[in-house]
């Protein structure tokens, strides 16, 4: 009993420490990438204090943090005090609690703990290891984030915050659906809600869900971007329109909680994309295999290598998030809604149906086609690819997301008749 509690506490401490550091340094990475894309150098001055050593600006996050802590924390007089305080805390807590169910590696060998503790099981690198509803937990807790945003927008009692919160509420709720549809396909194919089992299954077959369900991957990625409120879906805090959106009236450490929560959302979205679709810690030829029946296959090098592969993949996805920020212009709000409701949800349903049909009749179709045994995966990949291609063509030709919402006008000649006709 006691060892398992200590083990859990150690993992939680490790996780929170690593996440806070990662969020701080990702801010630096984001600023670097933003600068490089704009042909600038980015922060490269702050190094060790009181010396001339610069360390490529690696001291910048610490300086930023100190600045945030020392800044005046101003509470406007017109806010709802309780909710104003509660909102960033909700957002931050929801963002960090998600990581309880997200594996950050596979397992450690049992000899990671003293032998006197009598542990024979390998130690899963997951704060809540035996959570059978991992995927549901992640999405349920992730959905709480919208409370932080809406409460912050409401409690601030300012029009910019209000619109930001409203937009964000609509956006997050709209994109929960495609997000869930994307994950439903994966859950259906793997038959488990446990994220570590989903990874192990992809590692076992060597076929990542990216190849089996490319359509689901596209839907999940787009929805993940929107859920993390990253560009090109960052309407909740569109600077040009809404100043700072829902956190316009926040300052000091409360603002920092919002900003860190945003980065945590991005990290968790990247983790989910990697775990659900990019094979987790699996990489062909380097980290093959499963955890084994008792984890006896896992040696220290393998365990470390798997952590490195997983975190490396997550970093690549995060870099893509940051690159995407400067690559494509922001969607207009009605375009965002059209994309979510008219395109992403149908695509998610098509993916779900494809996966369901293949899960039920896949073996029969494969034998009917004369595929050799063991080639079911390839068949699924082909079906998924065809589904993606067809959907892409249909979406291109039909273009359901395009909508002209402007007021209609009379044809020019009828206006010249002198009658009082207004655009209807």
């Amino acid at each position: 009993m006691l060892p398992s509690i200590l083990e859990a506490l150690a993992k939680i401490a490790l996780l929170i420490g690593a996440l806070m550091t990662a969020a701080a340094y990702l801010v630096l990475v984001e600023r670097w990438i933003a600068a490089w894309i704009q042909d600038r150098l980015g922060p490269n001055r702050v190094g060790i204090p009181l010396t001339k050593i610069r360390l490529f600006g690696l001291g910048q996050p610490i300086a930023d943090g100190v600045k945030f802590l020392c800044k005046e924390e101003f509470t406007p007089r017109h806010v709802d005090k309780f909710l104003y305080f509660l909102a960033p805390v909700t957002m931050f807590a929801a963002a960090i609690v998600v990581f309880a169910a997200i594996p950050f590696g596979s397992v450690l060998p049992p000899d990671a703990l003293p032998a006197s503790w009598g542990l024979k099981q390998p130690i899963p690198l997951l704060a809540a290891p035996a959570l059978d509803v991992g995927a549901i937990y992640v999405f349920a807790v992730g959905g709480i984030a919208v409370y932080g945003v809406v409460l912050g927008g409401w409690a601030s009692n300012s029009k910019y915050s209000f619109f930001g919160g409203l937009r964000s509420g609509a956006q997050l709720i709209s994109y929960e659906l495609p997000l869930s549809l994307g994950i439903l396909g994966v859950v259906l194919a793997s038959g488990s809600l446990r994220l570590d089992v989903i990874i192990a299954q992809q590692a076992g077959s060597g076929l990542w869900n990216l190849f089996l369900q490319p359509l689901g991957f596209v839907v999940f990625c787009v929805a993940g971007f929107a859920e993390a409120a990253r560009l090109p879906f960052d309407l909740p805090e569109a600077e040009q329109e809404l100043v700072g959106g829902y956190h316009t009236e926040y300052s000091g450490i409360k603002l920092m909680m919002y900003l860190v929560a945003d980065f945590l959302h991005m990290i968790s979205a990247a983790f989910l994309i990697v775990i659900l679709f990019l094979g987790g810690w699996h990489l062909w030829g380097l980290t093959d295999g499963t955890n084994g029946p008792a984890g006896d296959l896992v040696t220290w090098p393998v365990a470390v290598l798997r952590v490195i592969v997983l975190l490396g993949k997550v970093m690549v996805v995060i870099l893509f998030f940051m690159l995407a920020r400067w690559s494509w212009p922001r969607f207009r709000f009605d375009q965002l809604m059209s994309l979510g409701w008219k395109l992403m949800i149908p695509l998610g349903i098509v993916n779900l149906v494809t996966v369901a049909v293949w899960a039920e009749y896949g073996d029969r179709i494969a034998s009917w086609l004369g595929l050799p045994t063991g080639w079911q995966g390839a068949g699924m990949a082909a079906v998924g690819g065809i589904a993606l291609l067809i959907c892409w063509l249909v979406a291109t030709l039909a273009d359901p997301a395009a909508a002209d919402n402007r007021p209609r006008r009379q044809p020019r000649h009828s206006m010249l008749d002198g009658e009082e006709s207004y655009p209807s």
Partner: protein
Amino acid sequence: MKPNDQNIEWMSPPRLGLAGKSYLLLFLQGLTTTLRHLLSPKKTVQSPEVRHEIPDPLIYRGVHRLNRDEQGRVKCVACFLCATACPAHCIDIIAAESPWPDREKYPQSFTIDELRCIFCGMCEEACPVDAIELTSLYDLSGKSREEMIFDKQKLLSVYDHTKDAEPMRSGGG
């Protein structure tokens, strides 16, 4: 103006072609643009260790200077044209009778409030004797507002400081 006014020309945004509707081509276009810039050489100048390169110091509009003639006297004849031309009203001249026989007046005091100046160069344009000029010194700083009000001595010293690098535009002294 009513919505059906004939003077209103209603515009429609250009319709997306197939390439635009398919998202993919524009997606790749955006990505290649950012990737290209990500790896391209950077334009940042590491100021203050590296100085900005000024293409032509003679036409740069930085801190003012008051030129001296060959005898080391201030060239200004206190005609007030620069103060009149100045849109920011930052030039303040007190004229006095000239102690020299070749002109009637000279500036007893000549101050420029560098904090008010907008560095438009109109004073330089207006000056009939090429006495006031803008140099290429661009990083001007001071510890107080008073320090940033340049008097005649200081403006003449700017000339002494920059005359070798930037000769007077009218030539000669």
